[in-house]
Structure formats: C-alpha cells, structure tokens
C-alpha cells in the first residue's frame, strides 16, 4: 500500500521541478526569445505552415470553405496528372528544356574557367572576371528585354541578316527557336558567374604536378588535358550529379517571360503551368498536386544524387 503513493509523489515531483527549471531557463533567456520571435514567426508562417498547406492536393479545395472544411478526394488529383495529356506534354517540355540546359549550359563555365585559369596576368584576369560576372546581376526581365530588342523584326540581328541578303526571321514567335534562345540567354547570364566554383577548384591544383609536367616537356594542351581537367573532375562530377537531381527545374522567371501564344506548346513547363492553372484559373487543388508531384520527384532525385556523391567518397551536401 505504501509503494504506489511513494511512486506517485515521486512521479509528480519530478516533472514539476523539470518544468520549473525550464521556466527559469526561459526567463533567463527572455532577451534571446525577443530576438528570435520575428524570425520564428516568419519561418512558421511562410516556410513551415505552407508545407502542410500542400494537403489541399488531396482535397477538392474550395477557397470559401477553406482548408479545414473542403472535401477530401484522396489521390484523384494525382491520377489526373497522369491522365491529363496537357500535363504529360508539359512534363516532356520540362525534361527536354532541362536536358538541353545540362548539355549546353553546364559545360560552358568549365571551359571558360579553364581558359581564365591560363591567363597569367592577375590584372587581366580580374578585368575579364568583372565583365563576365556582371550579367548574373541583371534581372530576367532585363535579359529577356535585351533579347527581345535584338531579335525583334526590326532589331539588330534582323538588320544584319538583311544586310547579308537573308530573309528576316521572327525569332520570338517561332516555336522552333524557343529552346535555343532560352539556352543562349541562360549561357549569357550565368556562364561567367558559374566559373567561380571551377576557378576555386582550379586554384587548389597541386603545382608540383604542373611543374613536373613542364620538366617532362608537356605543352599547354597536354597539361590541361592530363592534369588540369582530371584534377577538377570530381567537382565537375558532383555538380553534374546535383544538376541531374534538379532536372525538373528549368528556371521560372525566364521561361515565364519568354512564353507567348506562339511558343506555349513547346515552352510551357511545370512551374509556369502551376502558375497559370492555379493562380490564373483558380484550380488550386490540381495545380498544388502538380507542384507537389514536381517537388517530391525533385526531392527524391536530389537525395539520390547526394547519396551517389557520398558513396563515391566525396562530401555530400547534407
């Protein structure tokens, strides 16, 4: 008869002291909490709760009823993704544009970084760097505007075409030219900036290897091919695997700004589709399902990429 009462006394005392020290500690840290509060509120409101807001993908969301009262429809929105020919076309567009980006945009900074690395004069190198980094800081609106100005019927490129006796081309409305123009814009904007990471990798090359190669009579080409390229190989591999992990990401603003009624069939991608379908047409649940589908596939791909990198003996991202 004694035992249970003792246990009860024991059990009830411990949480209370625990609670009390917790309170005491919290009171001691009250100024930290004041500093923390705005940021915490921000994270909860705009980063955490919206993640759970994705549940409307499993609902027939009605803005007037809200998330709590809307009807649950299970996986039917996701079934629609695979039955909707629109979505399948858009998925194909997304993959195509992304793969073209990987093939043409990805190698450009590697090449440029190797070229820059061969520049011996520090001042010249810095001058070139400050020029080629610049476009990265322009907005996509500015970049697409510049492209539009150059490529419109009376623009400079068409003036040149006509000067050399060719017909003018309607660049911005020709669906076949959509992807090439997207790729060229992206190369123009980001190639210089992306050299930074490769230049850092190049800076850590073992100089004794290079000097040994010079002594052995290797010329510049041979040195680049046999020493420089292999030594940044792991950086290239890591970035390539990571890029493959985000194959459903094509860049939102650029594509959105480039889209017009003439190229929509070929240029619409998952991100822009979610925007037009969800925000413009108000089909919240279905476009959330499309977005969630893209997010989940993307997450799985990124985690897989990360695991591959770790398995290969390199540091992963997380």
């Amino acid at each position, binding site marked *: 008869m004694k035992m249970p009462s003792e246990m009860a006394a024991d059990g009830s005392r411990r949480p209370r002291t625990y609670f009390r020290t917790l309170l005491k500690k919290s009171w001691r*840290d009250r100024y930290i909490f004041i500093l923390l509060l705005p*940021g915490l509120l921000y994270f909860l409101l705009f980063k955490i709760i*919206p993640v759970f807001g*994705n549940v409307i993908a499993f609902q027939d969301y009605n803005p007037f009823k809200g998330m709590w009262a809307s009807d649950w429809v299970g996986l039917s929105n996701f079934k629609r993704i695979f039955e909707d020919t629109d979505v399948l076309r858009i998925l194909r567009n997304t993959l195509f544009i992304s793969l073209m980006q990987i093939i043409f945009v990805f190698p450009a900074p590697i090449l440029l970084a190797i070229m820059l690395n061969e520049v011996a004069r520090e001042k010249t190198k810095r001058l070139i760097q400050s020029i080629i*980094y610049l476009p990265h800081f322009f907005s996509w609106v500015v970049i697409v505007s510049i492209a539009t*100005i150059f490529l419109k019927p009376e623009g400079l490129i068409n003036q040149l075409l006509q000067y050399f006796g060719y017909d003018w081309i309607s660049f911005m409305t020709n669906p076949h030219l959509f992807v090439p123009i997207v790729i060229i814009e992206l190369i*123009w904007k980001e190639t210089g900036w992306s050299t930074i990471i490769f230049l850092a990798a190049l800076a850590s090359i073992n100089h004794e290897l290079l000097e040994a190669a010079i002594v052995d009579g290797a010329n*510049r080409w041979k040195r680049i091919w046999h020493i420089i390229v292999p030594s940044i190989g792991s950086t290239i591999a890591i970035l390539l695997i990571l890029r493959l992990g985000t194959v459903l990401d094509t860049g939102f603003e650029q594509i959105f700004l480039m889209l017009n009624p003439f190229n929509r069939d070929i240029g619409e991608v998952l991100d822009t589709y979610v925007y037009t379908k969800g925000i413009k047409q108000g089909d919240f649940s279905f476009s959330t399902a499309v977005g*969630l589908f893209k997010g989940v596939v993307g997450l799985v791909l990124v985690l897989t990429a990360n695991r591959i990198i770790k398995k290969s003996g390199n540091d992963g991202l997380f």
Partner: protein
Amino acid sequence: MHFKTKSDRWFDGINYLLLSVVGLCMVFPLLYIFSVSFSTMQDFIQKDIVLWPSHWDLGAYKYIFDTPVFGRAMLVSACLTVVITLFNLLMTSMMAFATVHSFVGSKLILRMIIFTLLFSPGLIPSYLMVRNLHLIDTYWALILPGAISTFNLIVIRQFFQNLPKEIFEASKIDGAHELQMFTKLVLPLSKPALAAFALFYAVDAWNAYFNVILYINDTTKWTIQVVLRQIVIVSPPDNNLIASLLKDPPPAQTVQMAAVLVATLPVLVIYPFLQKHFAKGVMLGSVKG
C-alpha cells in the same frame, strides 16, 4: 616565369582572342542599347549607330522621367528596395544571433531551419498563405514572404559564431543582455559582412519580378521590372502603351532601350561595391547548396 615556347605563345594568343570575344559578347548588348537610347531616331533608322551615338539625344530619358507610370514605378522600386534590404537584414541577423545561443528549444529551431532547406512550400500553398493573411495587393506581400533567406541566415550565423567570445562574456559580466549585445556589439562589429548581404538583398529586391505579378494586381503598385516587361516584352513591336501615354512620344525603340538601362542602372552603380564582397559568400553558397 618559365621560358615561353612557340606553342605557348600560340596558345596564349588564341586564349586571349577567345576571352576577348567572350568579354565583348557580354559588353556589346549593353553598349548598343546605351548608344541607341541616347541617339536620335534618325540615326537609328539610318543605322548610323554602331557603338557610340553620333548625335546625342536625351528625349527618351526625358520621356521616361516625365511619364507618371515610369516615375511611380521607379519610386516604388527604389523605396521597396531600401525597405526590403533593411528589413531583411534586421530579420536575418536577429535570428542568426539568437540561434547562436543555446536555449530551450534551440535544437528544435535549428532542425526546423534545415527542414525548410529540404522542403520548400510550393507556389500555391505560399500564395494561399499570403492571401489568407490579406496581404494581396499590399506591399507587405513583397516584403514579408522573403524576409529571411535561409542560406544567408546560415552564413551570417556562422559569421557570428566566429566573433571573439570574450567580448560577449565581458559584456555579460557588465550586465548586458542579449538584446543589448546585439545592438551595441554584434551589429557594429559585423558592418562589413552585413554590407555584403545588404548588397545581395538589394539586388534581389530591385530585380524582383515574379512575386510582384503574383501578389500585386493593382497596376498603380507596379514596380519598374513589371513596367519594363509591359513596354518591351508584352507590347512590341509598335508599343501601344507608350503611344497611349503621350500625344507626341519619342520613338518606342529608344524608349524601350532607355527603360532597359534605367532598370539596370542601380545594379550597374552598386556592382563595383558588390564585386569586392561576393566571392566568399558565393563559395560558401556553392559548397552548401
């Protein structure tokens, strides 16, 4: 320096040539747009402009700065950029300094930050949150949802962690609490680092386009990027918008190009300052994703 062989000299020659071509490709579009925007229409039609205007003409710029749509959009963009930069900086550094300490729940909060790196909310749920908070068509919708970039938070936090601990201990002995440490020690000590992030936040704020069209339907609240899109991308070639705004507008061509330059100008102005700072930040960024 090593002795240069003939093949070395060839290599260097070709390399410099190619790099010059690359550099020119980056500069030429801007230079061309600059020249046309300052030229007379006559020169433009006669294709007299190659790299430098032969007759300077400020008509396009006068027009831009006189037109209410442009003027207002630029004012809106400028004010928003200042407010967003200061607000983001304050929010980010406050949270960064708070999470340097260990307190009740600090581990949970760090985990939450990592969680947000892995799981981004998605467009529609974010939009619905902003809508449910009744922020649509208010400038708050452009300020609040981007207040803290998780990546910047992590970098600034690391920077704070590396500040010498002794000064905090000393100030604690003197009776200062964390709020005072933050305003009297952390902020003044980290001015250069925070300046770098201020530049990054400022460029992002000035360049912001998508969140404006997402959250702002009211055309009187448009920013310069949205206006630029309207007059260059949406309504070419003849530019109904420009024509509708004024009886006797300067040619759409030069106005379009002037608008591009005006929308780029702040970035060009702060670029030299930016350049000093970014290499380190980017290195951390590329390593941590």
